[in-house]
């Protein structure tokens, strides 16, 4: 049988500030976006996934980019207006201490990256994907340097996710308990000034915490002292986000997909749509706004294979069990441990995107029946109030 061996990457891999901790914990390390990252720890993907939904999981996401946009005028509205030139999202109305999901778009309406934007009072803090951070920073420098100083910060970033995340973090940072979903606050943790956001990529309640690199290991170990908290690798991070219906940049969304096709139009507020107070004015706005009004030819959908066989990224989708050309493709797929069944996401023609529609996915030369399913596959447990 074939057993996966890690890819040999030509460039030297970068360590995160928690690298030595992963090694000490016995993680299996793999190359990911230029970093040497833990894909799983001793218990493995399945148990790590289930533990996160039942208790709390600690994830090292320090490979992601953290970029500060500081308005030269000192006025946060100036930074917000400048960022709105690059994203179809209402940044100007984002209150201090709140963050919002956004994406950079290109001239054809494709997604260059999906990001989080926080209003930190005197600056905006962006969290961007690891594989995109150099390009994102270059674009921000090219397009926004007239208005903002742009600085990439090298803090560690950890996520603490799951129903016991609040209790676990509150032992070190009691103020976190008062936060609600998408709040962002600066607070001391073990004497270090950290930026805590109540958000994540699992569908669970939880936090993403930006920590000065030199104290990151100490804080991570402080959280791991709690028996409710286990370290979780990238493997379970992927299955958790798939169950939560959250797209992965580079797989489910990229420059060939628009936010409307990807089912992300909810993140484009009315201010930026047709008739809005600041309609358009972002790359690809004519295309994206027209798609919001008139719909798209294809859509991102959830998929539930009818059997037990997982249907993975790259599988072609067909309307019938034999013959015909592919009508779409799976962009993410695997097994959902919490629902104990295979699950996937992909793109289908909009007329076939209704939940319950039957299509077929080609796996190892056979067409397996799959049905279109509503996303997410699990109930989201964000703390909204």
């Amino acid at each position, binding site marked *: *049988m*074939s*057993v*996966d061996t890690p890819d040999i990457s030509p460039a030297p891999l970068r360590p995160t500030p928690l690298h030595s901790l992963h090694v000490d914990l016995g993680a299996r390390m793999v190359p990911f976006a230029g970093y040497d990252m833990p*894909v*799983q720890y001793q218990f*493995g*993907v*399945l*148990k790590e*996934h289930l533990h996160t939904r039942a208790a709390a999981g600690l994830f090292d996401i320090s490979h992601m980019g953290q970029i500060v946009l500081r308005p030269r005028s000192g006025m946060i509205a100036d930074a917000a207006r400048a960022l709105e030139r690059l994203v179809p999202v209402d940044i100007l109305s984002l209150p201090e201490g709140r963050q919002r999901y956004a994406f950079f778009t290109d001239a054809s309406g494709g997604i260059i990256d999906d990001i989080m934007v926080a209003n930190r009072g005197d600056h905006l803090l962006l969290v961007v994907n690891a594989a995109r951070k150099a390009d994102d920073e270059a674009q921000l420098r090219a397009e926004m340097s007239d208005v903002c100083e742009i600085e990439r910060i090298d803090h560690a970033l950890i996520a603490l996710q799951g129903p016991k995340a609040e209790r676990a973090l509150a032992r070190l940072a009691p103020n976190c308990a008062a936060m609600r979903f998408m709040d962002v606050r600066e607070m001391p943790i073990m004497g270090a000034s950290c930026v805590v956001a109540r958000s994540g990529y699992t569908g669970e309640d939880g936090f993403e915490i930006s920590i000065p690199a030199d104290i990151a290991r100490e804080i991570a170990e402080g959280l791991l002292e709690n028996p409710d908290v286990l370290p979780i690798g990238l*493997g*379970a991070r*992927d*299955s958790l986000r798939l169950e939560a219906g959250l797209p992965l940049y580079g797989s489910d969304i990229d420059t060939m997909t628009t936010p409307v096709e990807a089912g992300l139009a909810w993140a484009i507020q009315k201010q930026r749509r047709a008739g809005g107070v600041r309609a358009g004015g972002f790359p690809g706005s004519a295309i994206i706004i027209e798609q919001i009004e008139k719909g798209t030819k294809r859509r991102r959908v959830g998929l539930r294979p009818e059997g*037990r*066989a*997982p249907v*993975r990224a790259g599988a072609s989708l067909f309307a019938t069990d034999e013959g015909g050309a592919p009508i779409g493709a799976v962009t993410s797929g*695997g*097994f959902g*441990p919490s629902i104990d069944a*295979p699950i996937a996401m992909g793109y289908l023609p909009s007329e076939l995107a209704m939940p319950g529609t039957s299509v077929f996915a080609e796996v*190892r030369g056979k067409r397996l029946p799959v049905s279109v399913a509503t996303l997410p596959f699990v109930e989201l447990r964000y703390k909204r109030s």
Partner: protein
Amino acid sequence: MLKFTEEHEWLKLEGDVATVGVTEHATTQLGDLVFVQLPNVGAKLAKGDGAAVVESVKAASDVFAPLDGEIVEVNEVIVKDPSIVNSDPQNAGWFFKLKISDVKAFDGLMDEADYKKLVG
């Protein structure tokens, strides 16, 4: 007699029929299995042909025919409960029984000591 392949399978020979499974080392590398697909009884396979498929949460992997032969029995129990492969890979978690075309070829496979050296 127990033999091993570089593809992390074990074979136990009785007469000209080998019971085949994957090694504990393989299951550790694969992680918890969530899906197993077995060959059809009667399938004639050449050494190196894909015989079975195992899938974890993350990935799919092939189990290859370790020698030329014909499938004479499969272990449906691991299809219903793939976790048995993880918990008892070298007994209850067997995959299939292969009637070997050339029993002499069995002797050419690795013994346990050599396999242990291979996986360290």
